[in-house]
């Protein structure tokens, strides 16, 4: 798409050290799960790259016997998704649970038969959330999320759907960095090679929907977010202005998804305003 930016993206991302990142993320999962009294993690295993990487990290952190991969196909899901998810589970020796979401999703849309594919996609994502949180209670396992920094920053996820989790181990890694992690961890080649997709409808593609490749998107996000450069500075460095502005706008408009719900301030101490404690309070 933009060759010059492509080259710059690799420079901007620098010599990312996947071994060091894995070391930190494995410890992060282990410590943040166990210190609140849990031993197990449960995650949605889609057959895609991000959940494969999170499965690897969780299996390393908690042990394969404490890692549950949940396969939740819908009737329009790519059949390869199931076999790829199973491939990862077999590779790691983690437990899998298959929960077809087709009957639940279709039952709901009998009430709204004209719903468009975005609504259907959101309901699928939230149905999977429902399954994961139910199994979380059943298995006494924390839900380990699979969202990465790129999609969190541009809002390419369903709030209270695939974004719902106890933690996001990949939340500070761009998609291009997740790919490097996948290679380092030995995620099967076929999973690493397939085009990224939310798989909510046939033929869906992240990069087509976003209108930008992950290489270019990550390069722009690194400049804007990590390096705090202005849109003007990026344009001076050769990026296409309309593209940079569109990315900056995606970040701003999706910010609500990254925050807890708004709460009014009417008392002397209010949640979200001046009642400030870390989640790890007391642990």
């Amino acid at each position, binding site marked *: 798409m933009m060759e010059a930016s492509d080259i710059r993206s690799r420079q901007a991302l620098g010599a990312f050290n996947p071994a*060091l990142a894995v070391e*930190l993320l494995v410890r992060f999962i282990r410590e943040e799960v166990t210190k609140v009294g849990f031993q197990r993690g449960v995650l949605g295993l889609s057959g895609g790259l991000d959940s494969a990487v999170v499965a690897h990290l969780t299996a390393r952190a908690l042990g394969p016997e404490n890692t549950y991969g949940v396969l939740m196909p819908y009737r329009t899901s790519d059949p390869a998704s199931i076999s790829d998810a199973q491939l990862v589970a077999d590779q790691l020796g983690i437990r899998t649970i298959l929960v077809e979401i087709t009957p639940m999703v279709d039952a709901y849309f009998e009430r709204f038969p004209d719903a468009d594919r975005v609504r259907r996609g959101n309901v699928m994502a939230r149905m999977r959330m429902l399954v994961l949180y139910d199994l979380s209670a059943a298995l006494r396992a924390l839900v380990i999320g699979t969202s990465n920094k790129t999609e969190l920053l541009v809002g390419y996820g369903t709030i209270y759907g695939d974004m719902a989790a106890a933690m996001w181990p990949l939340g500070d890694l761009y998609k291009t960095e997740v790919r490097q992690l996948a290679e380092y961890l030995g995620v099967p080649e076929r999973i690493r090679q397939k085009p990224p997709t939310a798989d909510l409808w046939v033929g869906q593609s992240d990069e087509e929907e976003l209108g930008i490749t992950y290489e270019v998107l990550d390069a722009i996000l690194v400049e804007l977010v990590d390096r705090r450069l202005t849109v003007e500075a990026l344009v001076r460095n050769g990026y296409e202005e309309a593209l940079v502005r569109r990315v900056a706008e995606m970040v701003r408009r999706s910010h609500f998804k990254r925050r807890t719900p708004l709460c009014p301030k009417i008392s002397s101490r209010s949640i979200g305003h001046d009642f400030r404690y870390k989640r790890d309070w007391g642990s």
Partner: protein
Amino acid sequence: MRFTIALAQIRSVLGDVLRNLAQHLEVIARAAKQGADLVVFPELSLTGYYLEDLVPDVALELARSEVVAALREASATHHVDLAFGGVEVSEDFRFFNSAIYVSQGEIIHVHRKLYLPTYGMFDEGRYLAPGDILRAFDTRLGRMGMLICEDMWHPSSVYLLAQDGAQILLCLSAGPGRGVRGETKLGSVEAWETITRAAAQAYMLYVVYVNRVGFEDGAVFSGGSVIVDPFGRPVVSAPMLDEAVLVGEVDLQEIRRARTFYPLLRDERLDLVLRELRRIYAQRYHLSPYDGGF
């Protein structure tokens, strides 16, 4: 004089002073068995770091605190000096991020953190008051100075303690790890290696850097505690990220040797520094001679 210092690279429980105290007592007993004469804990070792609204709940009145009394008793029982971190509340109800030095059952010195980082991932200035005194102090083991984490990023702090005669600089830290672009180490760990070695080498003193480990809400504290000798060489280094209690030997004669080779402190021009600082100070604040300027 030679003696042994233990680096207590621990993780603390956020906001649970009693559990942290129990851990301190256990580590002190263990270090004493390894022959330690001094055990150094990280910044806010009794409370954890990201306290926010927990600050008043975990604050200690040093003179009356039973927690401090338990640590004083441990120092007497085990014949070991202690440096640990906690929140201190003053008579006028200000809260400080303090480092407390205890020897033979008594508090010898308290250092209140001077520079409270309030930017990026830090928010200390919102909850805590800055200290405004920096002094070296005498102990049975030599003349020491204490700094807390961010203090050490202000070279003036190290400079002042060195001029005040510190032979051993203790830096209690809760330094978050970040940066995964290095060969083997986090960027923040490499940065601390640079400044601890530079401080030791520039002032020919021992630097004892103790950083905590563990996660708080996703932020990791990266460890890498170290004793650096007056030539800038690590005496003992703790691993990155893992808990560890390690001892290393300090020999004050090494300071004499280093300062014989490199008499930089002898040659220091305090008069020059003061003159120029007074001028800069007067110019920055537009002071007339009448105001204490020139």
